[in-house]
């Protein structure tokens, strides 16, 4: 296994503030990043967002996920308990060179966004058959 290549095959969170495209409070979605087979999986909690509400951008090694969430309910309602806010979810990531960025795909289901980030051919672990002489 080539450790140098393997270490590039990763996705890291970044604290860089993404550009806001509209007003309102934004929230950082909780994510899992995991390696499974020949791909990395990014799962992000984006409750209230549907496929049409989600924008994913990849530019020069930076991946940005943005999910628009419309306000729910009357803004002047009488609160009994208020433990969380509702707004857009935005988070950015640095994508290692071991990821084939052209083949990133995504789906959303039950408020969970899943991104598939396939490893580049060069970053995949291969089993090498040793032939006898």
């Amino acid at each position: 296994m080539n450790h140098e290549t393997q270490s590039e095959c990763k996705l890291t969170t970044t604290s860089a503030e993404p550009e806001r495209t509209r007003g309102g409070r934004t929230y950082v979605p909780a994510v899992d990043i995991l390696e499974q087979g020949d791909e990395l999986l990014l799962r992000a909690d984006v409750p209230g967002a549907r496929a049409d509400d989600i924008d994913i951008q990849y530019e020069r090694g930076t991946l940005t996920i943005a999910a628009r969430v419309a306000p729910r309910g009357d803004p002047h309602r009488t609160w009994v308990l208020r433990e969380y806010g509702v707004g857009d979810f935005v988070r950015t990531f640095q994508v290692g060179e071991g990821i084939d960025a052209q083949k990133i795909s995504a789906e959303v289901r039950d408020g969970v966004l899943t991104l598939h980030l396939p490893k580049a051919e060069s970053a995949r672990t291969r089993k090498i058959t040793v032939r006898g002489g």
Partner: protein
Amino acid sequence: MFALQRFPFTPALELRREMDRLLNTFLPEMFEPAGGAYPALNVWEDGERLVAEAEVPGLALSDLEILVRGNELTIQGARKGANGEDAVYHRRERGTGEFVRHLTLPTEIDADKVEATLKDGVLTIVLPKSEQARARRITVKSN
């Protein structure tokens, strides 16, 4: 496992809640954090009913159980990990496991008329106010 008792109705807390309510008028984005309890809840009054809302992304109807008795609301369930055994985590922020939340509501609820819906990871429970107080199990329906 979380078990959180909310709203002990002491006069001091009543006053504090009233202050919070007034402050919320001016500072609409002020929250009382759930203190790690899952799921976080928003509850509001809507005329003759209360509405409770929780963000439960990834949960299916079968993962949730909602119980109402008198003025007590209980939401319990389990969030399963969606990944294979061969998965290697680089980062893990999304919790898994069993959860229970108890909430004491400011009024008695008509348990027979409670309706819950789950859409895009948002659970909404409509709780009509009532004088009655009897235990019932509520079926979560999808829309």
